[in-house]
């Protein structure tokens, strides 16, 4: 930038701050007027120049008020945080202006011009989102094609799950172990039986009818719980001294990591039944669960191996010197430390897994995103793709953000550093 002949200094502080302040103010007024009043003061300029005018004026203004050690606390604060040099001044303005320009339209679309009341597409008269669509389809988005009369079964299964998980935070440490065992080995069977039915007088609901958010949870939860131990053993296998185990693990990991999930799912639907003896039938959902689990286990294995790799050799030696064999060494010393190291990586894999679940549409299972996809093609509700996907995206974001926060908490809780 060309040096402006008169340099702003402490001596002519008032002049420059006034001048600069006015320029910055003009920039802001221009952007605000543009956004909220749809006025364009600089319309007489060529359109591109007019678009950037507030930025240029603002930058010059910020240049003029950039006076070090001015003695004014507020001014110093602005200068150090937003205005330390020309580039930072431009970036600060761009960010602030962009927020002013684009946040209101988004809010408008979401809330102020959106329609919440009604039951058909025709009730949506505003310019904004038509949340009526989500409202009407909400039941389907959550339960898929599961019969309305039976939905209490899904509800109670999930309430039970949340109650158990919640309880695990409060019960004394002595019972935690049993609760965990119950949660991992007994609950899944109860939950699945409750949802699928066919026994205890419950009506049988085939997995093809399962869907929506509840299916997202079911698929994610099973795959998460199962892929973790498998990944752990694969990671250990890859570091094993026994060639047979090592090469099997490497082969397995590289095979699954090398193919896209969508191919794997397709194979599980089309190819897998061919390998089964005639007459046996494995449920579509189970096939999909196995495919996703093995696929994610391969990734998990590599994440965990990263943690194993990061541990100093001394930890292995200390464990050995105390007389620990392979399994004790790994389960008491190595894995607790390695897993703690790679919590961010594990969380990453888990998040990816949750967000991969929509791909099960290739075998005809429709979880949340799949249901949205289906609903938007309903002739009565054409043109609602935006609302549907924004809704699905928000739900996924909430799930993933919760998991991410939990992993950060866990990291802090397990930290033994000060």
């Amino acid at each position, binding site marked *: 930038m060309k040096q402006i002949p008169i340099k702003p200094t402490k001596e002519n502080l008032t002049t420059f701050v006034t001048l600069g302040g006015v320029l910055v103010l003009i920039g802001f007024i221009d952007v605000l007027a543009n956004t909220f009043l749809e006025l364009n003061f600089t319309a007489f300029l060529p359109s591109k120049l007019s678009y950037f005018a507030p930025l240029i004026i603002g930058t010059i203004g910020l240049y003029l008020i950039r006076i070090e050690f001015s003695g004014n606390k507020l001014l110093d604060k602005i200068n150090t945080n937003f205005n330390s040099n020309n580039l930072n001044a431009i970036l600060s303005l761009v960010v602030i202006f962009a927020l002013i320009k684009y946040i209101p339209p988004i809010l408008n679309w979401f809330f102020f011009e959106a329609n919440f009341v009604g039951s058909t597409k025709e009730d949506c008269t505003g310019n904004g989102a038509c949340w009526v669509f989500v409202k009407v389809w909400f039941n389907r988005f959550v339960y898929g094609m599961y019969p309305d009369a039976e939905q209490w079964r899904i509800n109670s299964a999930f309430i039970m799950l949340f109650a158990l998980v919640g309880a695990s935070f409060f019960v004394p440490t002595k019972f935690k172990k049993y609760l965990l065992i119950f949660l991992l080995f007994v609950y899944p069977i109860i939950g699945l039986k409750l949802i699928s039915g066919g026994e205890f007088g419950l009506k049988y609901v085939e997995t093809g009818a399962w869907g929506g958010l509840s299916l997202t949870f079911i698929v994610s939860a099973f795959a998460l719980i199962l892929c973790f131990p498998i990944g752990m053993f694969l990671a250990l296998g890859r570091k094993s001294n026994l060639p047979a185990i090592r090469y099997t693990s490497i082969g397995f990991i590289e095979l699954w990591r090398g193919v896209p999930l969508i191919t794997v799912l397709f194979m599980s639907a089309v190819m897998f039944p061919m390998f089964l003896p005639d007459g046996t039938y494995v449920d579509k959902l189970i096939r999909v669960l196995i495919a996703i689990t093995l696929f994610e286990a391969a990734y998990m294995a590599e994440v965990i191996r990263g943690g194993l790799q990061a541990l100093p050799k001394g930890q292995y030696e*200390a464990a050995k*010197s105390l*007389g620990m064999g392979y399994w004790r060494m790994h389960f008491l010393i190595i894995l607790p430390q390695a897993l703690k190291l790679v919590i961010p990586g594990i969380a990453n894999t888990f998040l990816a897994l949750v967000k991969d679940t929509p791909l099960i549409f290739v075998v005809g299972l429709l979880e949340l995103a799949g249901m949205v996809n289906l609903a938007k093609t309903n002739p009565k509700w054409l043109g609602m793709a935006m609302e549907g996907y924004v809704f699905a995206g928000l739900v996924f974001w909430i799930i993933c953000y919760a998991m991410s926060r939990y992993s950060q908490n866990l990291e802090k809780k397990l930290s033994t550093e000060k």
Partner: protein
Amino acid sequence: MNKIIELKNVNKWFDKFQALKDVNLEVNQQEKIVICGPSGSGKSTLIRCINRLEEHQEGQIIVDGKEISENTKDIEKIRAEVGMVFQQFNLFPHLSILDNCTLAPIWVKKMPKKKAEEVAMKNLERVQIADQAKKFPGQLSGGQQQRCALARALCMEPKIMLFDEPTSALDPEMIKEVLDSMVDLAKAGMTMIVVTHEMGFAKEVADNMIFMDEGRIVEKAKTKDFFDNPRSDRTKLFLSQIL
């Protein structure tokens, strides 16, 4: 006196580099041996072979009547009898000091938790860090960590203790507190093999001194003879530099 460790013509290679050359050594019960020598001379490798953290290729190593080789099925049992203290402490950072000490007795020796904690506290008291039992290794000074490592090894009630340069990673001020604990242990009659450059410690506790160079035991002598009139020129040179 009973022989508890015996090495016969032990040879060891790291790929093409020969780390140990025809090493012969006998250690009696309650004997204290200090091994010294320049770096890379095979001192650490030698004691690491005794609990098979390193594998030797030729010769025999017999610990407490059992030969150690690739055919040894229950190497863990032998290791449980041989305690080791490392240069870098190698405490388990995810466990408290007390848990560091009780873990192996509980899982390897199947000691009840209560008993293991008693033993651990007794040993922590012995090395004077009982007040740190609830802390984690990362919160202790180097000297305290090394004393905890010593206590951890002692909790297994080993017959032999191996020390692999236990004070080399410590600040000078902390060396003494660790050495004090080791002297105390020596006086209690433990069989000890110590790799160290602390010649003051050696003079105080060692029955025999070993000087190693280039993978060979150059000189083995009674401690007094070793310092007063070393036989080989190499030993003389080394001692003149270190003392």
